[in-house]
């Protein structure tokens, strides 16, 4: 295997919650509990899971927007989470992010040109002004934005157009790695296809590596190379996309797959039992999924399964999968 472009080793993220002034307890929310992923150059690595599973936290930690409580983050074999800001800056130009909501991620008082020039000016300050302009124009063309948009403000654009601008901003420093956090879920159905196609084209043209965070498995099936299914801050299953759809190994993955509404209908006919994420402040001692799992036995409630490899190449954290 080639050297991964991004690797996390035992990544943990804990958030201290506000304490009651009379209480001695210091509640801590475990958002990530030892996440190990290695993202290979050129792939689309998808992270799926319900809200609260830690998928966004993982993306933000890798980007350096959050400082991990424990563990390591490596970019091309180089540890970046402890790196000082001066040395990290050029690496930040190599890693960029597209956020979920283009109505919130663009500065409403900054025109498109300034929005796009900012990452270059900040991360690569030696770039001459003429080159900045050139780069902005070329990335606008590549993302299907009209050159005339440069002097306009975000409120003049529709959601799809804004997301194109946000993607252009992520690409203006010519990054190798892009974190896309639910980039299409705030958009209308007919626009989602446009943005997904754009991301596919850009990946082909620029050899991008994506970390694609989503809750929508049908998008993963279409778009992803590998997928990590997360639950309560842990990776439950990690597999090639084809494999996970053909042979889902973890009961939680199967639950997610069964929840996708089908155009043929019929899969909602049977009522489902309510289930929800356990409290991330006091996670269950054994397998975090055990309270919702139909296969759970005494061992699952007592002993946490570690991620282990199966014959078909899938990694799964479940006592019952083979």
């Amino acid at each position, binding site marked *: 295997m080639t050297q991964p472009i991004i690797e996390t080793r035992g990544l943990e993220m804990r958030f201290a919650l506000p304490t009651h002034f009379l209480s001695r307890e210091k509640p801590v929310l475990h958002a990530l509990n030892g996440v190990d992923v290695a993202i290979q150059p050129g792939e689309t690595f998808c992270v799926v899971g*319900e*809200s609260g599973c830690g998928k966004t936290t993982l993306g933000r930690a890798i980007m350096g927007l959050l400082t991990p409580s424990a563990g390591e983050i490596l970019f091309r074999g180089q540890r970046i989470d402890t790196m000082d800001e001066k040395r990290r800056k050029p690496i930040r130009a190599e890693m960029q992010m597209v956020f979920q909501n283009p109505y919130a991620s663009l500065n409403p008082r900054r025109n498109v040109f300034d929005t796009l020039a900012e990452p270059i000016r900040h991360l690569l300050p030696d770039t001459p002004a003429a080159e900045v302009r050139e780069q902005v124009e070329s990335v606008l063309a590549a993302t299907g934005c009209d050159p005339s948009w440069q002097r306009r403000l975000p409120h003049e654009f*529709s959601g*799809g*157009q804004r997301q194109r601008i946000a993607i252009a901003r992520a690409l203006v420093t010519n990054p190798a790695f892009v974190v896309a956090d639910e980039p299409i879920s705030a958009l*209308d*159905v*007919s*626009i*989602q*296809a*446009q943005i*997904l*196609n754009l991301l*596919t084209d850009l990946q082909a043209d620029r050899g991008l590596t994506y970390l694609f965070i989503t*809750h*929508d*498995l*049908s*998008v993963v*099936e*279409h*778009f992803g190379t590998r997928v990590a299914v997360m639950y309560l801050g842990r990776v439950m299953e990690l597999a090639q*996309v*084809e494999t996970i759809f053909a042979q889902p190994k973890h009961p939680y993955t199967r*639950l*997610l797959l*069964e*929840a*996708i*509404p*089908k*155009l*043929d*209908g*019929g*899969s*909602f*006919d*049977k*009522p*489902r*039992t*309510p*289930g*929800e*994420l356990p409290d991330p402040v006091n996670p269950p001692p054994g397998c975090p999924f055990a309270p919702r799992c139909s296969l759970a036995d005494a061992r699952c409630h007592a002993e946490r399964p570690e991620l282990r490899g199966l014959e078909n190449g899938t990694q799964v954290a479940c006592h019952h999968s083979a």
Partner: protein
Amino acid sequence: MAMLEVQDLHVAFPRGKRDEVEALRGVNLQLEKGERLGVVGESGAGKSMLAFAILNLIAAPGRVSQGRVMFHGQDLLKLSDRKIRGIRGNRISMIFQDPMVTLNPVLTIGTQMIETLKAHRRISDRDARKLCIERLKQVAIPSAESRMDAYPHELSGGLRQRVVIAIALLTDPELIIADEPTTALDVTIQAEIMSLILKLCRENDVALILITHDLGVVAEVTERIMIMYAGLCVEEGPTKQIITAPRHPYTSGLLKALPQNAGRGQRLYQIPGSMPPITALPRGCAYHPRCEFADNGCRTRIPPLQGGVACFNPLKGASS
């Protein structure tokens, strides 16, 4: 006679001092008892507006400028405030998108449920409480008795939406209007809530108008679909037929654009452009600037809804 019949409904909002723009431009709809209808469209297509207009809930400065909403032969738009309150939340219930906004955060679940019941029925506190617990059990809320004293913030999103459904069912309505009831929820919770709504509608013979942008959900839950675009219904028909053989180019485009309808790694079909805002509608068919089959007729005249589709050049559909 149909249970609910919406005839040529127009909703208008003022623009400037004299002018008006129409958010709904003449929508017709019929619903029989126990029938489940999906209303599908992008944001701004007018689907929520339709739900609000049916219950005469359009807030000023908007107004219903034309049309009738006949419910058992009675025009809901002409009823007095007092009379329509006897129907709203009683014979027609609504479920909204975000349960945290629907529920009152400073009242317990029980208080809110009993209040709803007492607004429409003469019932003792004890009987009301009993009925509420029964409904909470019906929507599969664990330990229903103790949840009566819980506040909305103590419940998860999925449980909150179950409470909202339980409230909607309290008065044994004939029709439930659900406006994106699962958009704020996770896929697994969505599957739970939608299968619950489906089961309850079937068991109690309740009609449903499900407003959503998700064709998958509509395909799972409804019997008929209405596709809306820029304030008009562009296609209508049985769910199976529309999903397998759409006739309007817009419906067909929406279906082709779904990732599950494209091969792995293939480019998705994409509808160019975006829906025009109601303030800047093109002449003729509102979809023609995005349509690959548009001709001169489409650019000058609005196609009427004929045989379930509002298009001058419809696709062949199932019969071919």
